[in-house]
């Protein structure tokens, strides 16, 4: 089995607090999704690759087509490919079936690559997915990449990191940009995004900002990406680590292997977006770029403030309880502060130690919510007199049942909240839910009561 290095993956040297047991890497008590899910979330946005789930119908049948990552090109990534293992496959083995499945995909769809996810059952029965992939790769000439992330290995974040290792070992650095007719000397001021998944199209708003400044985004890892652009990501000058917790190992690995420095940034809120643009521009030490960045920031902030004027009065002084999934809570807190919203409690079950530190410095230790059971979330909302719950989809209907306004901040949301335009959309969505007239009806007793 190929997951002997689980413990290694959990230790993250680039995590500044790694001398302490990283809370984020602790085994959870349940309720969260699994390592397979985490690995799939990271790799699935590679749009022109095929993603084949080797396992029983559980892993694919309950989840395919359900991700919020958008594509500007291929839609192959959305297809639910699975070997749909049956009892017979378990008894007699299904390596042959897997191989046949891979060959079928290679021949009929001509994907840029095939990611093969090994889930609980093939991992338990000890199938050699790695060798099958290697053989298929030789036969087809297409990269066939094993992702050994059975759910029982642990939680979603572990799966994120396994996917990160896969990117480092099988994708990044496997081709040179000169293979595709570009000259390395042409590459000026290039960056990669790491840990940005183009949920609801967020990356498109961010890309346009860098374009205006004159900074080139070489590879997006992995939102709205092609396999090809990730293979030559090692030519970039700087990595921007957007979702720190999930893919910090990729940023660190690229620093070690290719000497590419990384910066942790966030694009939620005006303040964060401004500093991300500024920090990136300054990195290149080019006066023109720095000046243009300042100009873009000024223009965008002016535009944003104007657009926000519709909402800002309505949001001033509102109170929110926040429980994000993958998105860094501290960056959302900052975005909410931009809108005049105070965060009265923040769930940290899925946050890393360094994230928790930042959250503490923003809202104070007493507002940290460690137990995020439904009961506790509700209690936090009521005891702090909050106006809205900002969390993931699984808490949406819990909030509605309690007549609490809600917006979705996770994977499956349909609105892009990053960057300047995103902040305006966030303001609009929050106003829409807090000021919806349905709460008035919902809160009133029936007239005969």
């Amino acid at each position, binding site marked *: 089995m190929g997951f002997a290095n689980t413990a290694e993956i959990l230790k993250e040297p680039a995590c500044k607090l790694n001398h302490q047991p990283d809370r984020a890497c602790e085994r959870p008590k349940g309720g969260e999704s699994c390592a397979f899910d985490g690995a799939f979330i990271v790799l699935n946005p590679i749009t022109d690759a095929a993603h084949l789930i080797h396992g029983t119908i*559980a892993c694919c049948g309950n989840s395919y087509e359900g991700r919020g990552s958008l594509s500007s090109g291929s839609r192959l990534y*959305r297809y639910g490919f699975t070997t749909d293992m049956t009892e017979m496959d378990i008894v007699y083995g299904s390596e042959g079936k897997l191989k046949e499945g891979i060959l079928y995909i290679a021949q009929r769809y001509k994907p840029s690559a095939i990611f093969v996810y090994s889930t609980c059952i093939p991992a338990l029965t000890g199938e050699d997915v790695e060798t099958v992939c290697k053989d298929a790769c030789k036969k087809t000439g297409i990269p066939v990449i094993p992702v050994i992330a059975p759910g029982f290995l642990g939680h979603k974040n572990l799966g994120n990191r396994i996917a990160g290792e896969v990117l480092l070992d099988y994708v990044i650095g496997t081709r040179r940009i000169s293979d595709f007719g570009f000259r390395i000397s042409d590459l000026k001021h290039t960056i990669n995004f790491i840990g940005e998944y183009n949920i609801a199209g967020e990356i498109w708003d961010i890309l346009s900002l860098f374009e205006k400044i004159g900074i080139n985004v070489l590879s997006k890892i992995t939102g709205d990406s092609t396999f090809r652009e990730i293979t030559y990501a090692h030519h970039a000058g700087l990595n921007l680590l957007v979702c720190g917790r999930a893919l910090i190992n990729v940023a660190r690995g690229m620093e070690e292997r290719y000497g590419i420095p990384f910066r942790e940034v966030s694009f939620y809120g005006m303040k964060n977006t401004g500093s991300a643009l500024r920090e990136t521009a300054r990195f290149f030490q080019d006066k023109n770029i720095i000046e243009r960045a300042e100009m873009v920031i000024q223009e965008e902030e002016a535009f944003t403030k104007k657009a926000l004027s519709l909402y800002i009065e309505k949001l001033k002084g509102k109170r929110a309880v926040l429980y994000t999934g993958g998105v860094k809570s501290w960056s959302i807190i900052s975005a909410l502060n931009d809108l005049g919203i105070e965060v009265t409690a923040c769930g940290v079950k899925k946050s890393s130690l360094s994230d928790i530190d930042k959250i503490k410095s923003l809202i104070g230790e007493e507002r940290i919510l460690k137990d995020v*059971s439904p009961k506790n979330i509700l209690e936090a909302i009521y005891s702090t007199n909050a106006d809205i719950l900002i969390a993931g989809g699984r808490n949406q209907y819990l909030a509605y049942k309690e007549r609490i306004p809600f917006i979705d901040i996770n994977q499956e949301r349909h609105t892009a909240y990053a960057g300047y335009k995103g902040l305006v959309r966030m303001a609009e969505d929050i106003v829409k839910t807090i000021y919806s007239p349905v709460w008035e009806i919902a809160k009133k007793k029936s007239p005969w009561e």
Partner: protein
Amino acid sequence: MSCTEIMEWVNTKEYQELNFKREALVINPPKACQPLGAIFCAAGFEGTLPFVHGSQGCAAYFRNNLSRHFREPFSAVSTSMTEDAAVFGGMNNLIEGLQNSYSIYKPKVIAISTSCMAEVIGDDLNSFILKARELNVIPKDIPIPFAHTPSFVGSHINGYDNMLKAILLNLTDGKKGSKNNKINIIPGFDPYVANIREIKRMLNLMGVEYTVLSDNSDVLDSPQNGNFEMYPGGTKLEDTADSINGIATIGLQKFSTMQTIKFIQESFGHEGLSIYPPIGIKATDGFLMKIKKLTGRTIPEELEIERGRAVDAATDAHQYIHGKRFAVFGDPDEVFGIVNFLLEMGGEPVHILTATGTKQFGEEMKVLLGSSPYGKLANLYTGKDLWHLRSLLMTEPVDMLIGDSHGKWAARDAGIPLLRIGYPIFDRVNLHRYPTIGYQGVINLITWIANTFIDEVDRKSDDAHFELLR
């Protein structure tokens, strides 16, 4: 071939043949797995906590899935087995899980189903539960029905069936007593809460006493009253126990109730039968006649008038449906019901596709199609997926696709509307609050199908043909 050429090639007849030869790979499966059906079933009993024994992650998927379809919170717990459990077995996980579940969520019943991992390592649920009771981590008398529901066998409809059988086995044990006057109704894996309500309404009109076995209508459609309740309804446990003393049991789906009906026939000592869902006029007539026969009750005037209204709706709108070509996919029972309804309206099912489906299903579908001149064009494909369906839509076009939300890409590629019926529906609101069965269901189906066609006409009309009257 370039990408564009491939995309064109996959629309050809030549590709379709290759596509149907595909065996090792499933592309876009129209099915979910057993434990999803199991927790859906378990949630329909009073105070019952659905409990999944298996790997971390499975339960999170099921909860997400059900929550998105019904737009309701869905509570279920998981033992989150890890590598240690793979090596040493899942006993500790199960015992600790039972202890936590009981102390935190105070259920009246804990209904255990399994996901793949527990099944592959062969956990002995019965002995683990006994051990938990021995250790006093849970009360001696709390019912803990358990079902083996591996995802590598069957689909969600089988998980529903296995869990229901386990719950009935557990709760009716030793309850055999004097006959009550009730008829037991098993809805099956029915994603429409309104269907359960519709059945109850019709039975109330007839004055029939009944118990719905797994009544999750109040659990998955609870009123907005400002409080989240973990157990907002479900079939009463005493009614469930007493179901063994009923006069008969009738399953409203055949393939999601097979094991349960067999168990009832063997151990309840009363008639147990299953029918296809009462979708359409004739099927609803058949259901009511069956109830009449079993209970000796007559059909009240209200239902007679309702039937007349449904027939009126059918005559008013028949011209929009007669002669139209349809593709239908989904679970076997629901697909059978919809095909039956289409034939009744003169709609022509062309492609009928299910991911599962037994030989019996195939034969009965053949008889149904043979019974109508509108069934002549139809081909049934069992054990197939939505990529097969896409090929069919491309080579032999139809006017409308009927199925769940996953069909939206195939429908878009084929340039036809998707009428959302079945499970899951993630991209429309409130459909589960409208019945598809009974006479009311007839009116709803006609409304949705005919209006969708009329919307298409409006959308595609040039100015000259854009009219007020349709």
